[in-house]
């Protein structure tokens, strides 16, 4: 059964990276509780366009929770009030009729605002480029079962690999730390024999890049794990600490 709700939106507007931002208030009405949060944003933008106003800029791409492009800090939580979903997967039934919804961009020095709710997350790409890969000399395709991998390791590696690089961990962390992201990337490679070879160099290079880009440090509050749409565990952070310390102290 379809139900509709009316909402007041407080949205962060900022014309450009160097401009001063402010909150603007909008009203949207007759929003179906079956629609997604981004569809609600689309409706808002249609409304703004028909009023000859500038639409709100926000990031999105796949709209099915796999690309990590959508963001938004909604009512004090990254990806909004639901657990283990991205903003594009968030349903409007999670909101009450008449509610005021505050929508902010990810806040971090390492994620500067481009416009309105869009932040520049290329810092994550730079961290990956620093070592988040396996160097391969191309040749024939190896036999699928040539390297046996224990099931628990494969499971942990797969879990870590499910990180979509959305940056909610940075947004949730009071220190804007990227440790959950980096630990997921270091873990899923370090757990597999193919990635193990470069594990020490990778941990050092990626942490160094993370520090250089101005992310904060981890104080183990655990907020990232709770807010991560992919349920990445902070056990990965313990693994990253271990990998990094062993690499550094063994220099």
């Amino acid at each position, binding site marked *: 059964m379809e139900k509709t709700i009316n909402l007041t939106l*407080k949205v962060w507007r900022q014309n450009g990276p160097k401009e001063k931002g402010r909150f603007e208030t909008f009203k949207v009405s007759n929003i179906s509780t079956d629609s997604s949060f981004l569809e609600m944003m689309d409706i808002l933008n249609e409304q703004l366009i028909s009023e000859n106003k500038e639409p709100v800029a926000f990031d999105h791409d796949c709209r099915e929770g796999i690309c990590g492009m959508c963001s938004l800090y909604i009512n004090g939580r990254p990806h909004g009030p639901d657990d283990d979903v991205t903003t594009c997967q968030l349903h409007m039934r999670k909101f009450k009729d008449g509610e005021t919804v505050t929508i902010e961009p990810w806040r971090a020095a390492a994620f500067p605002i481009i416009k309105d709710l869009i932040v520049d997350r290329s810092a994550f790409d730079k961290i990956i480029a620093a070592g988040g890969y396996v160097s391969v000399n191309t040749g024939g395709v190896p036999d699928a079962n040539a390297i046996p991998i224990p099931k628990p390791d494969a499971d942990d590696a797969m879990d870590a690999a499910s990180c979509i690089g959305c940056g909610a961990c940075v947004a949730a962390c009071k220190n804007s730390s990227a440790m959950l992201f980096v630990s997921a990337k270091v873990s899923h490679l370090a757990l597999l024999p193919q990635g193990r070879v470069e594990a020490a160099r990778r941990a050092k290079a990626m*942490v160094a890049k993370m520090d250089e880009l*101005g992310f904060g440090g981890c*104080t183990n*509050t655990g907020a990232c794990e709770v807010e991560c749409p992919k349920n990445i565990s902070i056990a990965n*952070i313990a693994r990253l*600490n271990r990998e990094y310390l062993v690499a550094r102290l063994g220099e």
Partner: protein
Amino acid sequence: MSNFLTASIGRKFLMSITGLFLMMFILVHLCINLLLIFDDSGELFNLGANFMATNPAIKIMEPVLGLGFVVHIIWSLIISIQNMKARPVAYKVSQQTNSSSWASRNMLVLGALILVFLVMHIINFFWIIKFDPHSLSKVLIDGVEMEDTYTLVAGLFKASVVYDLMYVAGGLLLGFHLAHGFWSAFQTIGLSNKVWIKRLQFVATIYAILVAVGFSVIPLYFLIKF
């Protein structure tokens, strides 16, 4: 090794190692202190205090302990400043109560309050015992003459309700600080995983309760009994 101690994980490594060291000290300190309430004649506590004051191993550890405190405090400030810089613009609406514990978000505040307590505590006891021992009366236990530390400590707790409450507050602050600090220290040096994180958090809670209750019970004992 060059920039290890200023790298994010290196800084935390230092916090963790000094934290673990200070937690061991706190446990020893608590054990000796509890002698205060098991013998009203003060003999047990005086023996304990005298042992700590004269034992060469403890004498060596004293400056190390001081260094532990100093490093833990200075690095906490460096880390906090770096972490604040990482978020120059704050959120307008932020809901953190469901995703992290209050103590974990306020370690700096808790630490600062504990430092205030520590300064008071040093002025109350350590300073007098260390630098002004002549002001203490002497007792003879088993033919050995020693300073009557019991009268100094018990005397303060018997005489002042305000100090009693301050020391209870100190114990509670320490408990909250360590409820997060204990398991966090292991996580930071990598001695944790999916299974152990739960166990460590459980032990952290037990340890924190032990410290908070253990230290608070002493002034409360004197407050109620005398």
